[in-house]
């Protein structure tokens, strides 16, 4: 394949990586803090997308200012994702804290099943989206190919901002530092009197908002239909497992790797496009059993 196609593939890969990263971010965060893989995160993604679409639909008659509409995406995500996340933690997962992580994973799986139906009851089964918003941001010509600015610049931009923001938060805010402390040494942290319960709710709210944001930002590009959550969550599993559970920077790298692999496949081996994320994940796990970015200590005896 010639250089142009390579470049085009890169652009596609990066924009796909952007949204993929946003979804994986919340997932890996929860994973780091609780050692739980939150399957329900897929529903948060879906709820974020659907509610953002609803909000936009409600706003459109009243305003036509693009900034307001874009902002509404974030608002919807923050509110719906934050609340759902916190609710999930307080009402349910908290009561399963000391259980085997695998059991906790199954609880989130159950929640996922429930939310799938709830979502269908609320938003029905008709595809939902907010396409015109993406159009408002205009297009860019590149090698004779038109790209949506929304996809080309906005999504990756937001992804990077989210990454930087989270790093900042984790490094320089009290809550953030406490989260990090819990990630690294849960026992020690709690021993030091960090209110693990509060951190728990906080993390889930944050992660939920991020997951919902992933959805909200996707809804202008992709049609939301029942079952989408199931696919996104398993793809982001691949991302965080490749990265190493709980690894934020790792998730960024893994998302880019997977995004690139996928879009390159479209041009070279289209048949393998859908397989790419998982091939990547398996390959990495075989070489580095705990993912690209993590080291595990031997068990103390």
């Amino acid at each position, binding site marked *: 394949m010639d250089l142009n*196609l390579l470049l085009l593939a890169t652009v596609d890969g990066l924009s796909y990586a952007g949204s993929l990263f946003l979804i994986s971010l919340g997932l890996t965060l929860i994973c780091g803090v609780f050692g739980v893989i939150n399957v329900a995160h897929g529903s948060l993604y879906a709820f974020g997308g659907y509610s953002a679409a609803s909000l936009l639909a409600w706003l459109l008659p009243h305003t036509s200012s693009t900034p307001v509409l874009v902002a509404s995406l974030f608002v919807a995500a923050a509110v719906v994702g934050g609340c759902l996340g916190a609710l999930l933690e307080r009402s349910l997962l908290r009561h399963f804290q000391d259980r085997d992580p695998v059991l906790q994973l199954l609880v989130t799986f159950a929640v996922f099943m429930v939310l799938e139906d709830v979502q269908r009851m609320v938003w029905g089964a008709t595809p939902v989206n907010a396409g015109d918003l993406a159009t408002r941001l205009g297009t860019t010509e590149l090698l004779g190919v038109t790209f949506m600015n929304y996809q080309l610049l906005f999504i990756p931009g937001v992804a990077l901002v989210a990454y930087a923001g989270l790093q900042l938060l984790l490094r320089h805010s009290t809550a953030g530092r406490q989260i990090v402390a819990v990630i690294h040494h849960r026992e020690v942290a709690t021993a030091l009197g960090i209110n693990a319960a509060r951190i728990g709710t906080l993390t889930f709210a944050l992660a939920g908002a991020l997951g919902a944001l992933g959805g909200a930002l996707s809804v202008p590009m992709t049609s939301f239909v029942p*079952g989408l959550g199931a696919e996104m969550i398993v793809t982001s599993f691949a991302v965080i497992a490749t990265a190493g559970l709980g690894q934020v920077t790792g998730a960024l790298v893994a998302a880019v790797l997977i995004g690139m692999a996928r879009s390159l496949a479209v041009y070279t081996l289209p048949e393998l496009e859908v397989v790419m994320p998982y091939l990547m994940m398996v390959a990495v796990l075989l070489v580095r059993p705990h993912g690209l970015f993590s080291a595990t200590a031997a068990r103390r005896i």
Partner: protein
Amino acid sequence: MKSLATLKAWGTAALFALATAATAQPQPQRPAEIKLGMSTFMTGPASVLGAPAKAAADMWIEEFNAAGGLDGTKLSPTWIDEGQGADKFLSEYRRLAQEPGEKLMLSAISSGYCNALAPVAEDLKVINILWECSTEKVLEERRYKYVFRTGPNGTMEMVAAVLHLLKLKPDFKTLAVVNQDYAWGRDSWEIFRNTLLALKPDVKIVAELFPKFGAPDFSTEVTRLQALRPDVVLSTAWGGDLDTFLRQASQRGLLKSSQFVLPLADSSLERLGDAVPAGVIVGFVGDGYFADPESANDPEARAFVQKFKQRTGAYPNFAVYHMIQALKAATGAYRQALADNKGQWPTTDQLAATLRKLEYRGLSRPIRLREDGQALQGQLYGVTAKDASQPFPVARQLLFYPADILTPPVGQKSAEWVKTLKPALIQDSRIRRVGN
């Protein structure tokens, strides 16, 4: 303790079994009701098509029963969700098909499921109407006694699509296809391809893309198409997939730079609004179109469209038309058989025999079933245009393609037949303009 648990589990099983058995009685001369085992996508991307069809069916059956049903005998539908995956679907299907009492199956949307359930229906000796799925293979690869399709098949749809394309844009050089990756996407492409190459051998196929069924994002496919710049882009995708693909394509101007051919676009136009520009070739998977000028002065069609619009907030899509066709064919067959039987309730075999030569009418032009169980329904094709009356594009330059020029004779396989088509077909006199 354990044995107790075992007993309890089995106890519940037994009770459940008995409960269902209680409803089973010997079949009466004239049953109080006809059980309709109906399947549609209630979940998953495909439910865009399925949900409205279900609404339509419920609406129609409600009225039919209110009007006295089949002189007293009511229809009672039970729904199966095709969205729950093939094997869950199939076991549900079996359960319904094996329930005692007078019953008739209307299933399914997915061509994949149709392929799978046809032999089952035949085995169980229950009449099944393939009310939506279009793959021509199911009725061509094997001759069934109890399986019918009351709507068009892929051959009719694709041949008409090629004809319409060649009528409008006779001299294009390159074509790319973006179809869903399952039976329909693959089979329809095979027919389209062979037909096109038979009628216009010099066309170059520059890309064959098969994104998976229900893919949420087509931007990589769009990029690739833009890099290739084909004259024509074909997609037989439908439902949520088509919405997404078209939106992303139009956002990036692909719909303007290439001529799009969308045989199943009918159900997406209304949702997409002005995302679809003028000049796109669209089909109606048959000839049911709410804005069809010829049905404008047909009271039944008009009344239905109005009622459906206020009930669901949307205009009927092709699945709705197919559902009504299926129901009218089924009930029509019963009426016919009863008449032939001098009021005696027909056996399943008699009913099947009646269906095999049934003439009926949905909400569009008359349809005839032939002895291989395939209905002959003409195809309506048009080109999108802006219209003040609607917030979304409507179809203009409508042409009607009668079924008999679009299908091989009974017993011949479409895949071979289309290769024998001659360019003269494009100018066939039986193709007629609809409306102005």
